[in-house]
């Protein structure tokens, strides 16, 4: 075995050793395989053979191997890497774990991800930072569905180097024919999904064949052993260096009036003082004055480094902007086609607004209904209305303002994004931008001289959106009508949007599924917003059962203009009244997705106004609402 920690040099000349190791590069790779492919064993073997395991750990390992190991009295390397207690009991790994080892040439970070079906999410996570993927195949089983799944996901995430590790060769008598057949099968499949190149290596993780040392049992194999291959492939950061310069601005460093630095990690390219740059999305140009660092200014910085730049001119530039090569800037757009991986137990709701984070930009974004979903086992496309946990699909995305981007294939930093639920704050999805549907920079808003303030001033009022929400039959429309009459009497300009004037026209095409409800509210919100731009006081009376949509509408409006009015009538009471006979029909199963019966209602947590209809008459309620609004009324003068 090669000595990966050259103890002799450490002992004889530590300075020489340290100097050698000071200049190691770093490779991040991912291992994928199922529970039985011997993935953990392989990683354990790499750690063991590169002497990353200390005696106390080894003693614990030997102990554990005898107690819970699956290899009899032999050392079970898998136990080295199976981390959390719950997982150990189940005997499987269920999350992404990161391991570290080093050789003389490189330091390695291994993302260990589970192979079984329900954890696509974990593999995608591990793959997003990997330069290389090791796809494990059990030599006895050959290319399986999961092999295809892993390869597809690795390819989808843009991993440039694939290694096909045909494992457990010891169990097929180290037979070259078995290996050759598997490689041929795999090559046929890989070509079909666009994988151009891969490296196949026959190994035995358990016995150590061709992992760190060349196997005597397979003289027919003349390619590199696994570790040698891992030591020589090029890493992404170095490949990104030849692309045009881009640096997403993370932080504006402003310790005093004389210094304004823009801090960020160089996503691609190279930068030197004097280089002309363009700030996106504004398009302003300047040039780099200094590359500031604590140890003195730098002459050059490259992809992968965190730096602080100062510019020659006083240009506007803040977090979320991208500083780029002046002659080759990236685009900005607000509508995209993207591949999405859904990562949350709650499925995608097309039309709902999520936070989209890309680089250092965070914007509100709406995902339209997917064009299709992709079966990760067969790569077949199928129609889909939504995406559930671990689903992958292609959809259009619209952001509320243009973002600076590049296609994922060109830049992982400016093409990869995550989606965040606005209420739970969970990371619900990840995506890869393919291309923009149109260039947002070509769309110029008309410079409107009659501003919304002018509209409001003309009417002598401040725009408001009074958003009534509550169960069917709670009394929303009744109260809203009374409020509007009172406003009219006060000489205010208003308009009431309700089911009667919206469902028959604007939203005629929508039904009552969750997705349609979301879209219904989105449209109403947008229309209401335009009406407030026109200076109106808008009243809406819709069940609007979901908090997220109400929050989305709230976010459309200026601070203080949105009034959420919760018409609080208990379900039993609304059902007892049953003004339109709908509850009876719903109970009889004649109406699907009826709020309160077969579809949830999420009551507001902090409405501006709450009307308890068991204690307040509609007339009193209307009085209260008008008073509340007038109370916070600041007349426009």
């Amino acid at each position, binding site marked *: 075995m090669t000595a990966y920690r050259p*103890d002799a040099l450490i*002992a004889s000349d*530590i*300075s020489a*050793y*340290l100097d050698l*190791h000071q200049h*190691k*590069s*770093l490779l991040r790779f991912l291992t994928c395989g199922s529970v039985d492919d011997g993935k953990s064993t392989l990683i354990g073997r790499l750690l063991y053979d590169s002497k990353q395991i*200390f*005696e*106390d*750990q080894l003693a614990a390992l030997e102990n*554990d191997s005898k107690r819970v190991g699956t290899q009899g009295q032999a050392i079970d390397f898998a136990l080295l890497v199976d*981390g*959390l*207690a719950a997982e*150990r009991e189940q005997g499987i790994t269920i999350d*992404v774990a*990161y391991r*570290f080892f*080093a050789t003389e040439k*490189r330091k390695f970070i291994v993302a260990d991800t589970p192979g079984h079906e329900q954890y696509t999410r974990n593999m995608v*996570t591990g793959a*997003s*930072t990997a330069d290389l993927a090791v796809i494990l195949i059990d030599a006895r089983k050959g290319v399986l569905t999961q092999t295809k799944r892993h390869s597809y996901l690795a390819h989808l995430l843009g991993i440039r180097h694939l290694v096909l590790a045909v494992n457990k060769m010891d169990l097929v008598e180290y037979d070259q024919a078995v290996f050759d057949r598997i490689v041929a099968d795999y090559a046929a499949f890989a070509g079909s999904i666009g994988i151009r190149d891969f490296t196949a290596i026959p190994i035995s993780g358990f016995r150590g064949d061709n992992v760190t040392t060349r196997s005597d049992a397979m003289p027919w194999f003349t390619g590199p052993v696994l570790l040698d291959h891992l030591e020589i492939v090029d*890493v992404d950061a*170095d490949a990104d260096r030849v692309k045009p310069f881009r640096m997403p601005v*993370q*932080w504006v*460093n402003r*310790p005093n009036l004389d210094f304004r*630095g823009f*801090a960020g*990690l160089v996503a691609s390219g190279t930068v*030197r003082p004097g280089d002309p740059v363009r700030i996106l999305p504004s398009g302003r140009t300047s040039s780099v004055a200094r590359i*500031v*660092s*604590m*140890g*003195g200014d*730098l002459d*050059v910085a490259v992809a*992968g*480094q*965190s730096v602080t730049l100062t510019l020659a001119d006083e240009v506007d530039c803040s*977090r979320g902007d991208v500083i780029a090569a002046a002659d080759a800037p990236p685009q900005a757009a607000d509508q995209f086609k993207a591949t999405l991986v859904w*990562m949350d137990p709650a499925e995608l709701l097309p039309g709902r607004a999520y936070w989209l*984070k*890309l680089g*250092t930009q965070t914007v509100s974004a709406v995902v339209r209904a997917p064009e299709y979903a992709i079966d990760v086992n067969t790569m077949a496309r199928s129609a889909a209305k939504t995406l559930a946990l671990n689903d992958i699909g292609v959809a259009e995305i619209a952001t509320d303002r243009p973002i600076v981007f590049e296609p994922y294939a060109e830049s992982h*930093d400016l093409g*990869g*994004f*995550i989606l*965040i639920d606005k209420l739970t*704050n969970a*990371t619900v999805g*990840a995506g890869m931008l393919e291309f923009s549907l149109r260039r947002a920079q070509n769309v110029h808003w008309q410079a409107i001289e009659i501003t919304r303030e002018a509209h409001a001033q003309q009417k002598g009022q401040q725009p408001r959106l009074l958003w009534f929400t509550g169960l069917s039959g709670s009394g929303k429309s009744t109260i809203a009508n009374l409020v509007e009459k009172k406003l009219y009497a006060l000489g205010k300009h208003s308009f009431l949007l309700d089911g009667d004037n919206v469902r028959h026209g604007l939203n005629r095409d929508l039904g009552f599924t969750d997705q349609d409800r979301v879209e219904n509210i989105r449209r109403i919100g947008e229309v209401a917003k335009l009406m407030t731009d026109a200076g109106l006081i808008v009243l809406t009376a819709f069940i609007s059962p979901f908090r997220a949509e109400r929050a989305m509408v709230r976010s459309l409006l200026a601070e203080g203009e949105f009034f959420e009015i919760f018409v609080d009538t208990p379900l039993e009471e609304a059902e007892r009244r049953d003004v339109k006979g709908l509850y009876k029909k719903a109970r009889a199963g004649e109406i699907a997705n009826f709020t309160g019966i077969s579809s949830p209602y999420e009551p507001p947590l902090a409405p501006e106004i709450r009307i308890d209809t068991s204690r307040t008459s509609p007339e009193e309620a209307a009085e209260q609402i008008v008073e509340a609004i007038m109370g916070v009324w600041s007349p426009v003068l």
Partner: protein
Amino acid sequence: MLQTSTMDTAPASPAPLTHLQRLEAESIHILREVAAEAERPVMLYSIGKDSAVMLHLARKAFHPAPPPFPLLHVDTTWKFKAMYEMRERSARAAGMELLVHQNPDAKARGINPFDHGGLHTDLWKTEGLKQALDRYGFDAAFGGARRDEEKSRAKERIFSFRTASHRWDPKNQRPELWRMYNARKAKGESIRVFPLSNWTELDIWQYILAEGIEIVPLYFAAPRPTVERDGMLLMVDDERFRLRPGEVPVERSIRFRTLGCYPLTGAVESTADTLETVIQEMLLTTTSERQGRAIDHDQAASMEKKKQEGYF
């Protein structure tokens, strides 16, 4: 300096980034993300070598400004004297505010490592940390933990979410893709952020050497008064050390691989008194770093349990 080692050679085509340069860039990126997105970040400063590296990275990340957050030391009153000296010096050098929190309850009850065993860590450190975070309303706390330290940490996220009651739920952590971290949270929730997640013990030492970072002298061998107890070599750092019958402090040449409360931290006999020789010993040694800490010996999954309870 790191940059100059590669940058000076050939400005026309700089050498590929080394593993230390990439680790440094990643950590700085993480520090800046948190500064940009959290409302009230703080850096937990434990005075050890990992904290020293983390603090150094923070200074580099925000240079020429001082890091835009304070340092917080959750003190147990039982650290080595040399650590307290280093603490003041480091904060001053960085131009940062230093907050020290000592759990008043543990203080009132006289909790100490001699009488109270595991309760000592629980009250001073775990409870003390929660108290301090609540008291100042910090919503993001940097910690110097590394994934290579212990098996359950291998799966820890870089941004680790804690409920309003500071609990860690291993089943409910956010996926981390690319260099994208989701730092959004509800009121009361907080994040622990580990900028050194991907560093190994050797990386830390190499970086200290490359950057000339000052560390507590206890990491270097020197003659110090010691007693041998329960298989550990303990240093008699002050008069509070309770000698058992028959124990007489003996001067030995020792150093420490990790630093904590002095009565709980085992030393190793050594003559390594320079960074190079310390690293040499580390590379030739045959036991892992955490072995010197009493906390891990209970059971293999003990760290995971402690983490769920809110220990860092």
